[in-house]
């Protein structure tokens, strides 16, 4: 067998494998896109290429009188954005303190963060539920946001600290010589240099609450307070299959912006994860 035929065989096998992979990846996505244009309501009749495509499911989602979809969308955006802002702020503070200062309790603090990031914060779901009930934060967005921000701190502090460790300490020292105070060094010297990692932390702490289901499900009771995840689940589970096409339209509307956001930032995701994860 010559080199050339070997190459042809290798490449055609590769393309064939990739083709199968692409079909498997794309099929469910196209199927749901097709379902969302189906005229019928139920799962049984929906096909990928409907004969009489219609936009009526999209319209019904935006019919504010009969559908909470717009509310869910706004809730999700609101919760994720606020979580992002507070998570970035507190992670910047803690990461900076752990990276730049040597203080009593630092090592134990870091170790605590490390162990805490291993346990998903919904493992204590009973406690969260009872605690929220006791403090009156059940069925409020404030309670949910607090939990999300707290959950983001341990892991992202490690990421932040890992990045800050790579910024030379001589920079702060020379600034200190020039008489800059602690806060000034932090805001005017370190923060501008840490924009890449701040972007990564911001992305993580936006995506995590957006994709969360379980905590929102435990915390939120009334339909008009639901987030996207809980709302779509209710829509599909209440009468399984009977509202499937509406659900499909809702999924498409939520998946497209997130996918675009994700694809445009994916290289930061990967760099952020490898920077924090493989160090050491």
């Amino acid at each position, binding site marked *: 067998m010559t080199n050339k035929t070997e190459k042809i065989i290798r490449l055609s096998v590769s393309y064939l494998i990739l083709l199968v992979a692409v079909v498997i990846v794309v099929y469910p996505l196209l199927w749901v896109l097709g379902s969302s244009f189906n005229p019928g309501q139920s799962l049984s009749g929906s096909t990928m290429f409907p004969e009489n495509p219609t936009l009526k499911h999209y319209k019904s989602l935006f019919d504010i009188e009969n559908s909470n979809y717009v509310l869910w969308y706004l809730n999700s955006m609101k919760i994720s954005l606020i979580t992002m802002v507070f998570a970035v702020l507190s992670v910047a*503070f803690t990461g*900076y303190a752990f990276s730049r200062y040597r203080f009593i309790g630092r090592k134990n603090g870091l170790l605590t963060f490390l162990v805490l990031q291993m346990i998903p914060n919904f*493992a204590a779901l009973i406690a969260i539920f009872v605690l929220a009930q006791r403090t009156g934060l059940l069925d409020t967005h404030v309670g949910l946001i607090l939990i999300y921000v707290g*959950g983001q701190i341990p892991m992202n502090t490690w990421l932040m600290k890992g990045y800050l460790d790579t910024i030379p300490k001589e920079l702060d020292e020379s600034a200190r010589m020039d008489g800059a105070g602690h806060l000034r060094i932090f805001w005017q010297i370190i923060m501008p240099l840490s924009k890449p990692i701040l972007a990564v932390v911001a992305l993580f702490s936006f995506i995590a609450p957006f994709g969360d289901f379980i905590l929102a499900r435990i915390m939120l009771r009334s339909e008009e307070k639901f987030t996207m995840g809980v709302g779509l689940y209710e829509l599909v589970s209440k009468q399984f299959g009977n509202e499937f096409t509406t659900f499909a339209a809702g999924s498409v509307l939520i998946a497209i912006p997130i996918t675009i956001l*994700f694809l445009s930032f994916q290289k930061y995701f990967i760099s952020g994860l*490898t920077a924090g994860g493989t160090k050491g």
Partner: protein
Amino acid sequence: MNSNVTTKHRKNAGLLSIIPGFGQFYNKQFVKGIIFLVLTVAFFSSFSQTLNWGFWGLITLGEIPKLDHSIFLLIDGIIALLVAIIGLGIYAFNIYDAYHNGKKRDEGFLLNSVREQYHNLLDNGFPYLMISPGFLLLIFVVIFPIIFVILLSFTNYDLYHSPPAKLVDWVGIQNYIDIFKLDLWRSTFFGVLGWTIVWTFGATTLQVVIGVFLAVVINQKDLKGKAFFRTILILPWAVPAFVSILIFSGMFNESFGVINTQILSMLGIDAIPWMTEELWTRFALILIQSWLGFPFIFAMTTGVLQSIPNELYEAANVDGASIFQKFRGITLPMVLYATAPILITQYTFNFNNFNVIFLFNGGGPALPGQNAGGSDILISWIYQLTMTSGQYGKAAAITMLLSLIVITVALWQFKRTNSFKEEDMM
């Protein structure tokens, strides 16, 4: 100054500061002493009620049904516990400070003036000031719940002991004994644990194999359309997971789903009971998780592959290595070495992957002789015990067992990756 210490300031100051502030007075640091003294008085006058009530509640969990709410007492008790810990911390610092300054006097150094103390406080206090907002939040939303679950696992809190009508009592390790001794609980626990392990290893390993394999295939030099394939294959990661899982749960629907009605019937295969037979649900779940999880590994591996120096492959070519030899000898070790820490977090992630289990089939199908569904993993079983059957005490005990497993694996991993051995890392 000589090495023979003749004065005993450190001992005296340390002993005197058993009453907060007096050690500082002894060291002639009056401002600091007054601050400690005032703090102590303020602490007791404002918290003695909280502490008394809290500890009484924590120990008894209430005495009169309908009047005492055991669970609220438990929460107040934990708050009292935290307050007490903070108070003890300040107290310990007071003793340490007096002792430390006494030692300085013993060794003949001058103590800091009030002004210097103030500047010191600003400098040394700054990191604490910075971590305190995050840390406080963490105490309330993460550490507090953990303490609560630990304590709850030693109570008999369930539907029959449900405040305010009934009291909850401490039962020691009865919950743990029940889980391992009572037949129903034991068989369910080990059944669920077994499936959790199979699930974790099966689903994660499959997604790793697929991810690495596809990354290697696309990375071939003479393959065209790399950017296109990479973008498409990353899609399952980009679409929010809860959306995809709900879509799959529609596709796998037994009577109407597209898998049974179109794909399988096209291939001439009879409809498969995806949602009602335990084994098929499990099989479908592993397939779905592979679909959801492989793009992450794929993206990671692609990054690593691009950083492997070409000379390695050229040298292998000179030696006449085959494609598979190059893969086994160069590519695979490099990829695994670079991504190992992340691969392990994938395993812990799937171990607790509630979303896919719950959203696909609610943990079902229901099984006779068990109080967990056929595809329930530990975390979704805990959810069900808490939210539908009200077995709070048992659920807490199972949470403890689950955390034990996760923490063991995590610590083992971090010991291996050496991140602690480097001085600068910590």
